[in-house]
């Protein structure tokens, strides 16, 4: 198969790359662009570790082809902080110890960012169902839910 030339926007930057037609966007981000924040936990859309935002929609980048990013906007965990200022979710994940091993953290942060963009004042149940596509095996989710609740209240106040 011949390579596909793609021009896209990633975390606000214009990016161009060449990828195989059957190559996933996750592989492009990690292997071609060095953006290893998104993780591959399953490759089948069942764990959410590769979550990114594509044109304002939360998706698993393992279920998107690299070629599909043409002309679209991609947001990854690497784009969440502004310079040295962390996003409130990042800050609250640190303060609440909402991570142990941390492999699921980038996916949770992106999914929580999308959740709060759609619903700035979610109930515990809405947070739990909103983040059900992201697996965490270390924390039992307790501290993750609390961190998102706390971040939501900080962001409302901002």
């Amino acid at each position, binding site marked *: 198969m011949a390579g596909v030339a793609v021009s896209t926007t990633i975390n606000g930057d214009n990016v161009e790359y060449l990828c195989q037609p059957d190559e996933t966007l996750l592989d492009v981000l990690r292997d071609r662009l060095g953006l290893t924040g998104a993780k591959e936990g399953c490759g089948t859309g069942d764990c959410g570790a590769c979550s990114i935002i594509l044109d304002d929609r939360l998706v698993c980048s393992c*279920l998107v082809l690299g070629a599909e990013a043409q002309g679209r906007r991609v947001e990854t965990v690497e784009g969440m902080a502004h310079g040295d200022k962390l996003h409130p979710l990042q800050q609250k994940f640190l303060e609440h110890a909402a991570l142990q091993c941390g492999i699921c953290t980038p996916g949770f942060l992106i*999914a929580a960012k999308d959740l709060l963009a759609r619903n700035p004042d979610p109930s515990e149940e809405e947070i739990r169902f909103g983040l059900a596509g*992201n697996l965490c095996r270390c924390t039992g989710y307790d501290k993750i839910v609390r961190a998102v609740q706390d971040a939501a209240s900080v962001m409302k106040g901002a």
Partner: protein
Amino acid sequence: MEEAVGLLTGSAGTAAILAGGSDLLVRMKGGFTEPDLIVDIKSIDGIGEIRQTAEGFSIGAAVPCAMLGENEALKRAWPGVVEAARLIGSKQVQGRCTIVGNLCNASPAADSVPALVAAGARASIVGPAGRRTIAVEAVPTAPGKTSLAKGEIIDAILLDERPARSADAYLRFIPRTEMDIAVVSAGVSLTLDTAGTITAARVALGAVAPTVLLVEEAARILVGSKADEATLQKLEEACSAASRPIDDKRGTVAFRKQVAGVMARRAATIAYTRAGDR
């Protein structure tokens, strides 16, 4: 659209249609399919839109399921179809998956299909021989197989305008609260008269046969009733009896038969309440 049909018709090897990709990419990852040609249909005009037509609704083949939940008119008219579509996978998958993909994947456990069958939805098909429209239940023929001919693409799902006092509901059984494939499922669509008597009903069951089952006996039981306890009991028994499931990693025959009835009863109750409220 003509270009896509031409590409698919002309391809010599395996060709795949890419809309949301949430099934296709999983199959590619697992090595179950290695397409020589992937046709991304998302850039076709209008295929990513939900349109309100004179007859009702037209849901484009590339509309991600999350969009169904964002369309207030559709939610009001077909709450069961929307809740079924919104149960497919996670939020992440919702941003990609489509009801046409769910239908063409032809899994007996597909979430949106029983709801679409209960709703009497139709599939609008474009192919080398032109356009045709068929009932959604005629699309899947067996697990993983459809009645579509080479080069044919479903470009939209069509849903009717709803008469007054009509509503639908969809329920599935999964072991977790999210992220699972239905072990059994039921879609029910009802229309009531002003006295609250059911005048029309469609009941469809998922994951209890090679394709989604439209249980006509269940509909007959409901019509003429007010969804009273005795009727619901008969409905439950009829749905359990109609089920022809298999034992597999997700459930047993006995479990599926029994819970199919429970899901149908509960979905009918919800649909009845919804219909009475409008």
